[in-house]
């Protein structure tokens, strides 16, 4: 299926991935929040995209495969958005989480 992706090109992709890996490890050592987020997660996205495109050949699969994958990811975003208000927030409309230590000893 992937005649256009020759032997060398795979190795090239792999090399790029390793470079990105290096950056993602080096980035956080700067101890800057923004840099960490970008280098850690931004690069993770790039790496995942490259593996999916060039190694899994998502680019030469039928369109609907990509659509199915995107649907799955979208659903996870929906799930996250629907739950974040309750799970990630510490308080909301007429409710608040009790501070953990106070709660830790509440079994009858």
């Amino acid at each position: 299926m992937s005649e256009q992706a020759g032997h060398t090109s795979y190795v090239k992709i792999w090399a790029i991935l390793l470079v990105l890996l290096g950056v993602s490890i080096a980035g956080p050592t700067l101890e800057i929040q923004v840099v960490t987020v970008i280098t850690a997660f931004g690069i993770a996205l790039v790496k995942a995209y490259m593996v999916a495109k060039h190694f899994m050949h998502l680019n030469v699969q039928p369109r609907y495969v990509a659509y199915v994958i995107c649907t799955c990811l979208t659903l996870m975003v929906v799930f996250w958005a629907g739950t974040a208000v309750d799970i990630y927030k510490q308080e909301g409309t007429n409710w608040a989480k009790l501070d953990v230590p106070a709660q830790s000893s509440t079994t009858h």
Partner: protein
Amino acid sequence: MIESLIPALSSYARQIDFLITEVTVIVGVWLVAAEALFFYFIFKYRAREGHRADYITGDEPRMRKWLIGPVLVVFVCDIFLIVGALKTWSHIKIELPPPAVVIKVIGQQWAWTFIHPGADGRLDTADDIVTVDELHVEVDKVYHFQLESRDVVHSFSVPVFRLKQDAIPGRTITGWFKAIGTGSYDIQCAEICGLGHGVMAARIVIGSAEQHAAWIDASSAGNTLTAMYE
């Protein structure tokens, strides 16, 4: 329609009952119409000797309107219902009126603990009145309740108030009610909470101003439970 089975004793109980009646009217009309038409079709188009069904697929121009038409009406009804729902919900669960009294409601396996303010009318003071499975409130006063759970998920449900709120361990959830009639009624736990869920019953006693004051005096005198809970 509901009050014939159970009284509506909170300021918003009637709103909920009205909403339920409204829904009943709308969906009732739909249900009756649909079922009637359905059974009419069944009896009208029974198989007859030497008669064959018409070939109708819904793609005919004269049939087009029946493809989407009815469901547009459903959509309009939905909008109508949504507006009513959101208004009532916001009134009950989002915009709390300023409280006259604040109480604490604590669920645990398998009992309800109610902490009432004492004579000073303030919570978390020495004269708080702590009761188990018996909540005393005064009529015509806005109450805020702070709902907590000590172990598993419970649900604080006062059917006569049309009030229900789950108690989640690790959270304090605030709600409100304002009684508009006196008497003594059931409080149920409405979320399965283990072996004793079926016996996790409590009573709410709604008293007039005098009755309630009298109860406070009576129970302030040497309240053993209060001591136990401090």
